[in-house]
């Protein structure tokens, strides 16, 4: 188990190094950060000074070497644009994104799993057809459109919920969370729903497929024959066995949501880190982009690791030592 985790972490380091190199070259090819930052009236001398200050006058390879040597000491440099430490800027915004992702995924899970089981148990019922059609809509409607429609209906026409922002937050240790205040809930609901709709559709489909696969199994039939109530069969025998695919999808999708909630965050002006990434790419703020992607790679590797560990907890037949990452 321990060797498995260590091997995974080493792999993550390798991926981070390769990725930071790619981003370095990529942004270098795209454009010159100085022409995005400097005032248009700045003279050539001013521009050269800015270039020197940020070390952009040196060869790319040297810039990368300097970055790497600092990164090994966990110093990811300062944002060109704001002068603040890049990692600090990201970590400052991370709780907002994580909170949004957690609420959205929880919504998707709480609605998706029961509906999926229902659809699996009653494959021909009218209600099932309704659920399945709904799920097709759920993942085929584009995110930004769903978000804008929700704003139009709930904020503009009905006036029940505010259209954007994060509102009041309450402090819980080092974290500031909106789910602890009523105002915060009223603001997180729409963006979370926007994300949850697509994810919920996916979870319904996976759960339904897994349920249908598990139903004809001998252990279900045996439980029925023993005269167990359906409730117990569902909770103890069925749910336990269909959890593996659900956990897999949940883990993957959770990582996706955290890393790329950009669209939803932009539409709802949610102060998360996705928006920060977008703004930084547009302005070629390289330290922030690199630090962000490094953090996300680390995060995704961690989520996958957690999913793998959960496998072994859920299913005693799975042995981590043999798993190939």
């Amino acid at each position, binding site marked *: 188990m321990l060797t498995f985790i260590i091997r995974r972490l080493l792999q993550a380091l390798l991926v981070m190094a390769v990725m930071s190199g790619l981003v370095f070259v990529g942004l270098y090819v*795209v*454009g*010159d950060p100085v*022409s*995005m*930052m*400097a*005032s*248009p009236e*700045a*003279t*050539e*001398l*001013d521009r050269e000074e800015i270039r020197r*200050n940020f070390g952009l006058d040196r060869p790319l390879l040297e810039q990368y070497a300097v970055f790497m040597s600092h990164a090994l000491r966990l110093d990811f440099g*300062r944002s*060109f*644009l*704001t*002068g*603040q430490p890049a990692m600090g800027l990201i970590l*400052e*915004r991370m709780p*907002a994104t994580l909170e949004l992702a957690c609420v959205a995924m929880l919504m998707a899970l*709480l*609605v998706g799993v*029961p509906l999926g089981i229902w659809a699996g148990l009653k494959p021909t019922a009218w209600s099932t057809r309704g659920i399945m059609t709904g799920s097709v809509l759920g993942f085929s409607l584009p995110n930004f459109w769903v978000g*804008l429609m929700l*704003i139009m209906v709930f*904020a*503009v026409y009905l*006036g*029940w*919920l*505010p*259209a*954007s*922002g*994060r*509102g*009041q937050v309450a402090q819980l240790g080092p974290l500031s969370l909106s789910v602890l*205040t*009523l*105002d*915060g*809930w*009223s*603001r997180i*609901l729409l963006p979370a729903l926007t994300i949850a709709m697509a994810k919920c559709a996916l979870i319904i489909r996976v759960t339904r497929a897994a349920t249908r696969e598990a139903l004809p199994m001998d252990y279900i039939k045996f439980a029925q024959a023993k005269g167990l109530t*359906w*409730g117990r069969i*569902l909770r103890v025998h069925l749910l336990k066995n269909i959890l593996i695919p659900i956990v897999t999808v949940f883990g993957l999708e959770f990582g996706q949501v955290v890393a790329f909630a950009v669209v939803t965050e*932009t*539409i*709802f*002006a949610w*102060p*998360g880190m996705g*928006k920060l990434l977008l*703004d930084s790419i547009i302005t070629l703020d390289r330290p922030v982009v690199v630090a962000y992607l490094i953090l996300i790679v680390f995060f995704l590797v961690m989520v996958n690791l957690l999913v793998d560990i959960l496998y072994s907890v859920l299913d005693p037949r799975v042995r981590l030592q043999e798993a190939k990452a």
Partner: protein
Amino acid sequence: MRIAGRRRFLNPAMLALAAAATGAAMGTAQARDLVVALKTEPTSMDPQYHALTPNIQLSQTLFDPLVCGDADLVPKPCVAESWKADGKVWTFKLRPNVKFSDGSPLTADDVVFTLNRVPKVPNSPSSFKVYLQKVEKVEAVDPLTVRITTSEPYPLLAINMVGLPIMSAKAMAGSAPEGKTTTELNSGNGLVGAGPYKFVSWKRGAEIVFERNPHYWGPKPAWDKVIYRPISNPAARVAALLAGDVDLIEDPPTDDLERLKKDPKLRVETKASNRVIYVALDQHGAPSPGITDTGGKNPLLDKRVREALSLAIDREALVARVMGGVATPAAQLLPYPMFGASDKLTKAAKADPDKAKALLKEAGYPNGFTMVLGTPNGRYINDSKVAQTIAAMWTRVGVKTSIDANAPAVFFKNRDSYAYSAYMAGWGTATGEMSNTLNSLLVTPDKDRGVGTTNRSRYSNPEMDKLVESSAAMMNDGARAAALARASEIAMADFAMLPIHFEHSVWAMKKNVRFQGRADQQTMVQYATQAN
């Protein structure tokens, strides 16, 4: 059993919904607060860190400068009651009753500290040093008199002071060479100014809060509290206004304007800005990178071709159809009556495709040629759509034009490496007078003198250069304006660059807010008042 199970799942969701509805009711803003949706968040609160509109518009609300620019950028007394120039020596008399937001008086020492701090701010991505050009020495003569000495007579000093709001030397005391650092200022430490509002808090990405400065020397500010929220997506800004979350938004999309104007609960304010959208034409040599079918020649070197390209553009139609009417067709690079703009160039020439074709024929291109027009996508209002329309108009007279639209970062890189024969871009004249425009865009590039910095078409006309250069030392405003107007006429008669239109800035707000738009496109809340 199964049904009971499902109900348990539903209950928490219902509770949340009910809770949310209550929360929304409680969250309504109070009457005397103003909530503003900004399209771009500032990068810093340090008024001397990054010379960028989103930063400047907020620091000018916290800190008053010596000289303020009014809505049309005409200099007017602010912290300085009066000023006079005597050759190279400028004397500014300070208003005696100006207090900082902490109650301490503003004196000449604060002005000296502020101006001397500018070059010491480290790692500035766009330095405020541009406002201190030619400044040699800043001295406090007595507590209410400041003397600034320039290296040569420099008439633009007063208008440049608009860019340098006065900080408090006492509040800024710190161990770093620049006093309080940019990082400290970002957290509010040292942010003590003499502007109408004072700083309360900044949560990056979420909101910036200001409140009324009780010690303000001018008329009592209209709002108890001002809350800025960055909402970068234009549709989301409009939705936030329609939902009543915010009171005032910047830059609603032109497609939504008609609907917003019809809404009885809203008001739309437009203001002609000093940002010109222009097309630059490569006049460096032959061949030119984006032109084919000419046997290696660069047709743009021929004035007749440049005139033909200008005549082919129907600016009226462009403004009406592509810009939704929120722009003014341009005949020069700065709108009349701004300082140094020519009164002979107030109306754009009418499109004349037939004359354009005739001119092309006369210049030896009866069949036209093929050209690429570069444009940024997402930098200026409807930029790539405008470029497409121009390309279509040129193609109509025989110059087969395709557009190369890129993200701003890529566009500027290409432009700065002279990769375009023709490109469309914009210029906002920060000082509101013609010398800034001409010096940057059309004067022959000279690295040592720091002129021609954005002259990527490499137009060069010694007569115009001389006029602009000599105007820089004319302390008489009338003579200077006349020289600059003459320079503008020369450049436009040369078709050195094709002005297309002046953008209008647009703000949308609730009916109970009144906002006076500014020519420099800045959203300054001191220009917002309650309507009833």
